[in-house]
């Protein structure tokens, strides 16, 4: 099966290393994909705040583009790695399925731009694809450097599992832990897997956002995690890039690597850190590099 890949704006900018690591992992595992032609922004959470119908319209353009690009397929699997994109596309699809009058309007608008939407698209998260399509056993087999002794705290953030718990539990998700176990690392049992990192508030209203990030970092370190792995570009940004600021604010010395789950997986698959975009990190996950040994160890 060939997947369509919808990167979204973040994966081309602040979340570049998410894209780099994801595609590197796909390449090694032989997962076939092609990028969606001329995709546009999903609208994210901010767009919804301004104009709902337009937000759904621009999001559905991507779904329609997918149907155009894969017009001979009956079921199109489109991978949306960014949590916000994933959630917004799902939300759009749900909205259109439940709302006939709005569907008519949007279909009309799509027609104006020469597109059509029939509802053949299935929106998939890379976690879902890796664990449920590719399979945990296959991942285990592909591992070259088991990450022995590494305690990884899975952090899903909000929108991967909320409000649509499509492939995992909304309150206590476990898909990432399955990957952690498959690559020989140890999943950390901790209560903040889906606790909000503050999202855009961390950048905009610091007095609200920073405490949220702080509690997540603090708790992960308290639960003896070596690294936090995440599936959301904004979570990764908030948790990693604000560490200095948080330490200053709380007069603490929190120091923990926050990487994409695809980066951790990639290391176990034998991919070198720069190929996974890990040269872009501010906080190097030293213990992980050490555990991988070999080529990666030089990046410590």
């Amino acid at each position: 099966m060939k997947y369509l890949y919808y990167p979204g704006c973040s994966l081309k900018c602040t979340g570049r290393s998410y894209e780099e690591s994801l595609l590197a992992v796909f390449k090694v595992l032989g997962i076939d994909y092609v990028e969606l032609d001329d995709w546009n922004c999903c609208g994210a959470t901010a767009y919804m705040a301004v104009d709902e119908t337009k937000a759904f319209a621009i999001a559905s353009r991507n779904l329609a583009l997918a149907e155009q690009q894969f017009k001979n397929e009956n079921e199109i699997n489109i991978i949306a790695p960014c949590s916000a994109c994933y959630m917004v596309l799902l939300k759009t699809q749900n909205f259109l399925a439940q709302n006939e009058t709005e569907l008519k309007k949007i279909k009309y608008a799509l027609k104006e731009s020469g597109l059509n939407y029939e509802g053949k698209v299935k929106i998939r998260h890379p976690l879902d694809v890796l664990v449920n399509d590719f399979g945990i056993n296959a991942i285990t087999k592909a591992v070259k450097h088991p990450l022995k002794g590494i305690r990884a705290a899975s952090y899903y953030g909000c929108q991967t599992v909320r409000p649509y718990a499509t492939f995992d539990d909304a309150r206590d998700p476990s898909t990432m832990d399955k990957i952690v176990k498959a690559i020989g690392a140890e999943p950390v049992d901790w209560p903040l897997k889906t606790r909000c990192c503050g999202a855009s508030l961390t950048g905009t209203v610091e007095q609200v956002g920073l405490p949220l990030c702080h509690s997540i970092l603090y708790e992960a370190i308290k639960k003896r995690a070596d690294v936090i792995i995440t599936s959301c570009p904004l979570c990764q940004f908030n948790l990693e890039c604000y560490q200095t600021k948080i330490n200053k604010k709380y007069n603490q010395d929190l120091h923990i690597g926050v990487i994409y789950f695809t980066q951790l997986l990639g290391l176990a698959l034998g991919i070198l850190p720069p190929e996974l975009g890990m040269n872009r990190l501010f906080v190097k996950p030293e213990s992980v590099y050490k555990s991988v040994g070999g080529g990666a160890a030089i990046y410590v």
Partner: protein
Amino acid sequence: MFTNLWEEGQLFMSNTYGSTLRIGFYVCHCGHNIASLVDVVDVQKYVAALPGVVVSRDYKYMCSDPGQELIQTDIKEYKLNRIVVASCSPLLHEHTFRVAAEKAGLNPYFFHMVNIRENVSWVHDDRAAATEKAKDLARAAIQRVFFHKPLETKTVPVNPAVLIVGGGISGIHAALTIANAGKHVYLVEREPTIGGHMAMFDKTFPTLDCAACILTPKMSAIKSHPNITLWTYSEVEKVDGFVGNYKVTVKRKPRYVIEELCVGCMDCIEACIYKEAKYPDEFNLGLSKRKPIYIPFPQATPQVVLFDPETCIDFKSHRCKKTCIEACDRNAIDLKQTEKFEEIEVGTVILSTGFKTFDPKLSPQYGYGKFPNVYTSLEIERLVNASGPTSGEVITRDGKSPKSVGIIHCVGSRDEKTNKWCSRVCCMYSLKLAHLIKEHTDAEVYNFYIDMRTPGKGYEEFYDKLMNEGVHFIRGRVAEVTDWAIVPEEENRLTIRVEDTLIGVVRRIPVDMIVLSVGLEPREDASEVRRLFNISCSTEGFFLERHPKLAPVSTFTDGIFIAGACQGPKDIPDSVAQAGAAAAEALSLISAGNIELEPNTAKIIEQYCSGCKSCVPLCPYSAISFKEDVKKAFINEALCKGCGTCVAACPSGSIIQNLFEDEQIFSEIDGLLKFAGIGLKESDTARKEVEHV
């Protein structure tokens, strides 16, 4: 082809039994219930113009005494021979009007009822369309009654024995009421002992009298009552028959102990080769252990031990020394016992199968099953009970006395994702548990409630008492129970996160023990039990009563009554009251001695029967037999329950169902769509005039 029989003019005459058709039509306002949406006067005028109609009236309340008298006077004065009443559902008042007609000397089955309330005025909002529909329905009825025939009501004797299913407080109370009235009761209980949930409770609200003290005397009264046959560890397998005459098969599961011989000395338990009890004790909800041979609790009734074949060594390997058998000097142990089936005949049945508590694992935010110190309310009932696993000492699973306890109300209740309903008893039992925990420990007790519901005698006063005892009341639904500690006081404890909605502030409250006040649910197999007894369940799965206000313990199946929490969540006083009501309903049937049955049975017109046997296998009651000598089918009227399936299937049209004859239904169909009475073509013109007035 359907050349309707009634097109043959003769039938018309024969159907009116020698006299001209004289119909009386009555349309009810039902106060404003009907009149507000249906133009009843218009309907009355419209029907008045229909042929055959002699009297047409509208009246405020047809079901009232004056309303019924109106019909009766008209029957006498105008020599009416058909009555049609357009009012509420026939399920409500068909009987009332039939009796009224009968009193005036008319055969009650010359009456027909039109439902213009539940089927029209209550469900529509367009007055013109509703009036139009009411006219159609009335016209169909006028046309239908042409073909009504006088019928005899069958009466059958009522067997005075009563079956009661479920031996909780409701079943116990109903059984004693009926037995004390001198009638025989079969009390069937699934568990090895009667007592139900109430036997597990420590104290009862709001009086705080001990549950065992008030329940156990009733339990032993059951055991010793000469009019009660008590079958515990038994289940109803099969139910046949109908009101007054039910045939019931009861399965008696093997206890591996001969009940008549066992005296409950428990020497066998002592002698079991397991010196230590090591299997979870069901009665204590797994909070303590029992042996493979056990008695559920000290006051269990009957006082008979039983084996758990799942854990007994002898059942697994046949290699046990069988020290239990040696210990029993009455030779009561029989490991070869098998299940037995008893067949009984009863006239009425009372179902009091009770409830089950909500499984809090379905609300994972409260951490039940994840954090050992999160308990259900039922577990706490056992924990505070003097005869419970800790002899009444309130200690957490790690053996500590809690410094603070949180009681979370509405667990599983008032929630779209789990149970939508309010379980009615949780507020009160949470208050009771708060009091008992305070009594047993010196912990701070927090109650987290959405709304405090204390409607009952002495209930609000009990709430007041608790507030004065220093229990914290926080209005807010707990969002989560977490082991995430932010401040040092929260370390190694459970923290409750809740909005104190009365203050408008989110609070984090660390506690050592959490009590989940789980709601009440229908039993898992309520649906199977319902099918067994041919009754209905309401949406949420509790047994459905015939009428929520006026027939709260009756069901749609005559002779089957319901009592207690199987009908909906209720506390002990309400359960007992309902059990009394159900017993009275059963006794009233028994006391009447006979019961009237609807004469809607089917019969075969022998001369038309072609002997094809299509009908024979269709009958679920084996009421149809085939007479080989004449090659005709024959219906045993006593067995027929009047579903009409055979009638619809008969290819030669030789089966008739009383009250639902083909021509009656055909004329109703035609009447709904157009007026097409026989030999009454002038009617069409009459109708048009009225319509265009």
